[in-house]
């Protein structure tokens, strides 16, 4: 009988071993899936235990704040796209999502402080974030776009700091829980951040890239004179201008936005060099990698890869049509490249992150993103862009007493009237502000987009001047 007992004992203890191994399997192999399961309320509850930090603009204006378990957005729809929203039902978007770890106090530097808070039974408080955005500029941008579909981006070309990011139509983040279903169904897609998630043909604003490529390939291009007949035919494909510009210098071609000239320059460059130039201006790349907001929703600019580029497609790509697509931030960065001597700084939103006691956890440092072109080329193009605003297509963007540089675009698209574009910067001799504006199906860039850019440049310059005087 002793032997029977022994055997029974082994069986029972063996069962315990099996259960132990199985528990290990549940914990280690199932664990990640179980922890992320939508029916698991632990993540949401954990967040509810933490007081989420606030988001401020560069002047300390509150953009998002938690009070009595609710999240408030004082600017409402004016900053809805960059700031985003937090919802237990619909998740997080914008900077609320991108800076989640900071706002919840879950960043690596927060461990000790949060542990002490919990140990002492206090409500743990997340970190506050100070953005580069300026509420006044943001408000103006949204007001200028109101009633139209479009986007505007204002940034500092010397640092990459984003001063305003507007996308229209907007939505009210304060009432997103009630309205989400309706807002999401709207045809104009208000939740979509047109400033960074979109893909528009850039039209003539892309000529800046083509010009840089042509000058980089042959510096003598600047001295060339072209003959514009009002159209150019490439392998049977006809590319038209609005008028025949006749004999034009290189600078004149950019000022008058001559399609024939730039199509010809594109053909001379070849697909390889045009593609490489676009890449060096940031196309096909994501500037948010290795930043404080690495997963910012971004649709990189794109164009046909050289091996698939036909000659007619190459000609239309050179004037920003064909398959060239870009978002407004990308085009603002193209302007910034010319403004900043050919160097594009990495765009950023976060000025600094402060823990509840005011200690700085993170401070942004301007970082170079890509070298788009060399300073000499940038200087030639800048001169042409100044002339374009002074006497060319961009006259509507001119400001009294300030040298504004700019390039218009009226991008043909299959959805109706041309998209109205304007990219530019000011003051030309020492640029502090770069801008890109698009009005969907707005028509002529010089008439519709340039005035918006003018107002934004004016306010941004007065604000940055005020900043400088302090």
């Amino acid at each position: 009988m002793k032997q029977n007992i022994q055997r029974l004992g082994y069986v029972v203890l063996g069962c315990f071993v099996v259960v132990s191994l199985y528990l290990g399997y549940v914990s280690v192999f199932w664990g990640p899936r179980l922890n992320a399961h939508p029916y698991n309320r632990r993540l949401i509850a954990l967040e509810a235990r933490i007081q989420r930090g606030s988001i401020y603009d560069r002047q300390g204006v509150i953009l998002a704040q938690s009070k009595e378990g609710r999240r408030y957005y004082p600017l409402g729809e004016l900053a809805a796209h960059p700031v985003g929203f937090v919802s237990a039902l619909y998740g997080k978007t914008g900077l609320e999502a991108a800076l989640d770890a900071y706002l919840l106090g879950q960043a690596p530097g927060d461990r000790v402080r949060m542990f002490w808070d919990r140990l002492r039974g206090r409500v743990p408080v997340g970190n506050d974030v100070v953005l580069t955005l300026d509420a006044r500029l943001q408000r103006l941008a949204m007001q200028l776009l109101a009633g139209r579909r479009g986007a505007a981006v204002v940034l500092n070309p010397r640092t990459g700091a984003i001063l305003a990011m507007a996308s229209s139509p907007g939505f009210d983040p304060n009432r997103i829980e009630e309205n989400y279903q309706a807002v999401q169904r709207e045809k104009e897609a208000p939740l979509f951040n047109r400033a960074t998630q979109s893909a528009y043909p850039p039209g003539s604003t892309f000529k800046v890239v083509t010009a840089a490529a042509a000058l980089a390939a042959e510096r003598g291009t600047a001295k060339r004179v072209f003959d514009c007949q009002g159209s150019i035919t490439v392998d049977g494909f006809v590319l038209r201008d609005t008028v025949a510009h006749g004999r034009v210098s290189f600078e004149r071609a950019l000022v008058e936005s001559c399609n024939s000239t730039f199509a010809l320059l594109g053909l001379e460059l070849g697909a390889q060099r045009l593609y490489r130039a676009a890449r060096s201006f940031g196309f096909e790349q994501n500037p948010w990698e290795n930043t404080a907001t690495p997963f910012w929703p971004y649709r990189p600019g794109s164009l046909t890869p050289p091996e698939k580029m036909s000659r007619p497609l190459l000609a239309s790509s050179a004037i920003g049509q064909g398959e060239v697509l870009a978002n407004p931030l990308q085009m603002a960065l193209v302007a910034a490249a010319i403004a900043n001597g050919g160097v594009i700084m990495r765009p950023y939103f976060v000025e600094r992150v402060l823990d509840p006691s005011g200690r700085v956890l993170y401070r942004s440092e301007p970082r170079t993103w890509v070298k788009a072109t060399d300073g000499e080329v940038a200087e030639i193009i800048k001169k042409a862009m100044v002339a374009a605003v002074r006497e060319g297509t961009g006259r509507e963007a001119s400001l009294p007493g300030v040298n504004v540089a700019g390039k218009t675009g009226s991008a043909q698209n299959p959805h109706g009237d041309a998209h109205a574009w304007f990219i530019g910067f000011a003051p030309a001799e020492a640029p502090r502000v770069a801008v890109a504006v698009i009005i969907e199906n707005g028509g002529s860039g010089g008439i519709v987009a340039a005035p918006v850019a003018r107002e934004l440049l004016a306010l941004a310059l007065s604000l940055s001047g005020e900043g400088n005087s302090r």
Partner: protein
Amino acid sequence: MPASTLGRSRSVERKLLLYAGAYLGTGTAILFLHGYGKVPWTVLAGAATAFLSFILLHFFWSFKGFGGDPFLLPLVALLSFTSLLFLYRLNPAYAVRQFAWLLVGVASLWAVTCWFPRYQALADYKYLYAFAGAVALLLPIFCGVEQGGARSWLDLGLFYVQPSEFVKVLLVLFLAAYLAENRLLLSAGNFKVLGVFLPSPRDWGPMLVMLGVSLLLVIFQKDLGAGLIYFATFLAMVYVGTARAAYVLLGALLFLAGAAGSYFLFDHVRLRVQVWLNPWALIDTAGYQIAQSLFALASGGLWGTGLGKGMPEYIPAVHTDFIFAAITEEMGLGGALAFLVVYMLLVYRGFLVAVSSRDEFGSLMAAGLSALLGLQALIIIAGVSKLLPLTGIALPFLSYGGSSLVANFILLGLLLNVSHHVCFDGAGKEAS
């Protein structure tokens, strides 16, 4: 008998109890600092009293020269203390009631070891156990109350009693006595069925009747967990008594047939199996509880969230059947495995007692009680982790519930009594 050896073994018990006390003290300090409960001081007073009850029992045994196994009491103390800490953390009201039952349990342990140290006499009353067990199981059918889908409780005004918990112990006592008397007849077998020699029905009869009655009753009470425990314990003890694997095989086949039959007959059994196979499809209804339990098991990671830092309260009925999930969430996989080791040690010492017992009744009883203890822990832990279909039974010494706690303390007392008689030999051998 070398008294020094005995004294040493009790001193081992004292040392281990002090460790368990330090563990309780740490947990209590955490709960106290967090301010759980309306009157934070109650947690200190309760913990002190609980510890004191164990240490007093220890001193009583030392004084009387009781030779029971020195490892069992500290292991049970560790489990009981954990139960109090977690119940207090989940809902102080549960902990207060469990605390009262713990004192009753320790008192019953004292009574069993003090009044019936000569366990051999217990073998004489086997039919009384059978009768008492049957009555205890019949009562809830006629005048019981239903809780958690099982009609197995008696309302005694001040508290509920679950007779099926005590019947587990009675079943072991009856089987041990019956097998000790008839095991040779049973293991010989003179009656051929399906190529297997079986003993005559006259020898089998009483045992099968007892088991059949108890299984029928749990079916009427809809208490699947108790039924499974009875059957598994029955098979384990028949194997120990007869060494005939064929019986176990036959029993297992019978069980599978019964399980298949009830799958087609009873909706609640079918639902259990469906939930076990795929709880995610039924997550809004019947699968909700097991899904929440799995979330809790996973959220603890390796080392747990820490006492009071998890969210086990999302699991319905977490304080009874699902306390293991709560413990795993807050103590992690490490803590969960540690408690499995505690149960393994308890079962191991139990089987050691069974092997060393000099009489067959003692061996059978100790083996049966150890198997019963281990099976309860295994079945509910496998249930809450979706290894087996979930059947609601209490996790010994950890789950909330007075009947289970007191019944398991009586089980422990019986085991200690058997070990008291082997210890004389064992101690002598050790000393020589």
